[in-house]
């Protein structure tokens, strides 16, 4: 997909983002930030793509660095969010 198609997706995603997040209760704002943080760890997909099509050693090295960083973001983000949410329990 290119050009206008991607722009269309972008604009619709902005509306979905605002709509979904405006319903999040303030009690959960910290997990929201941490969960959203984990979601942008999906840049790992981009890091894998640039590394997989790298043509020289420098590109491979940089790409692998990006893969490591993105993995830390994604995996760490989801684990820490889960730990937080695990603690939110109703009255026993």
């Amino acid at each position: 997909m290119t050009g206008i198609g991607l722009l269309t997706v972008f604009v619709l995603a902005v509306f979905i983002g605002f709509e979904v997040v405006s319903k999040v209760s303030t009690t959960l704002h910290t997990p929201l930030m941490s969960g959203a943080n984990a979601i942008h760890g999906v840049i790992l997909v981009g890091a894998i793509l640039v590394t997989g099509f790298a043509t020289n050693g420098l590109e491979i090295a940089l790409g692998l660095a990006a893969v490591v960083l993105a993995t830390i973001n994604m995996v760490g983000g989801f684990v820490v969010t889960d730990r937080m949410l695990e603690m939110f329990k109703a009255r026993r």
Partner: protein
Amino acid sequence: MTKQNWVDLAYLLSAVCFILALKGLSSPKSARRGNLIGAAGAAIAVVTVLVGTEGLAHIPLILGAVVVGTVIAVPVARQVPMTGMPQLVALFNGVGGGAAAIVALLEIPRTGGGFALIASLFTVVVGSVSFSGSVVTFLKLQELITTRPIVLPGHPIWFAGSLAGSVGFSIAVFARGGVGAGTPLLAVVVVVLALAAGVLFVLPVGGADVPIVISLLNAFTGLSVAASGYVLGNVLLLVAGTLVGASGTLLTRLMAQAMGRPLTSTLFGALRGGSTAGGAGPSLDRPVRSASPDDVAILLNYASKVIVVPGYGLAVAQAQHVVRELADVLAARGVEVIYGIHPVAGRMPGHMNVLLAEANVPYDQLKEMDEVNPQFATTDVVLVIGANDVVNPAARQPGTPISGMPILDVDQAQNVVFLKRSMRPGFAGIDNELLYQPNTTLLFGDAKESVTKVVNALKAL
């Protein structure tokens, strides 16, 4: 269907998972499941790109790097104490921004110019700012550097210059179509200047305002991921990044509202020498009423309704567990106990909720400001533990650094008990009129020790 169709479908599924993950956070009941759905979406995306991309090389190396990242991230994420959560989120945000910047950097020569090249350069600049800004945020929150605003000589000029420089060199790269000898060097200059801009952006922000910066940098990383999605023609990155960008922007706005001042004064106030200057100093000679833990225990024992107002001081003293014990003892004696949570209590929006949840406080006892404020007038005792500015009536008057900030109307309760270490003012540096009110009692000492003494006195009654 072609293989590409399947790949696109898998990405769509993954994007839907991310939307469901955010939607799950609308209630504590569905939140954990939502997060797991999000993690599943991420896993689907990674497997899809690995098996579904035609001509992808270096797969063993990539898998090795994924393992390295996982081995680093999991123990840290498992072991960090809940008080340290904000700086960890800042750090994870930073590495994400860094990854986006590297991805875009490598794409610069392949875009063939045009809007994709602009999006690449945008990602390089914003991702780098997010990376270095997050690192400074981490250092501030971890108190490895001072939490006070740091303003260098000529700070605004250096900041504006580095930002303008990174944009200027970006234009130079764009003019060359992103290719040719010398272009990589120009791109490196863009990165270095953007990194400097990120550092200079966060340095002048005071410790109390850092939550807003985390939220804003989170939005920045989201937007840079979205832009890299455009560059790579990858719809999933575009959607996921945009969702995060939107959520970060919304949260930043909500927080600025909760602090009662515009975002620009939070971010650039120190540069203008304005908002963080503080008002009149504390008048140490004014009489206050202090009490012993036994007095407080008696007061609580004969109350029918108690509201606890926790602040970051409670978290620093690690008093959340003993406070819950106090609430349990009171509840067993028929006293109604709830917690009044100010939106900016703690160091991240909602941070106090997480800290209390860690101490097994049921979330239905945690009341938001709008819900708890009408209840103070019918409350016998309010316990203010390690909080100050969020209950300071000075916010209702013009001309103070916190003017306009919505506060908890603690002064309307029958009795107010302040647990404080000293008469030192709060982060905003202004005196709190509430401390001198006739119905206010002060219990000096470390929050954890004080509450423990109150609990013991209460049990002895």
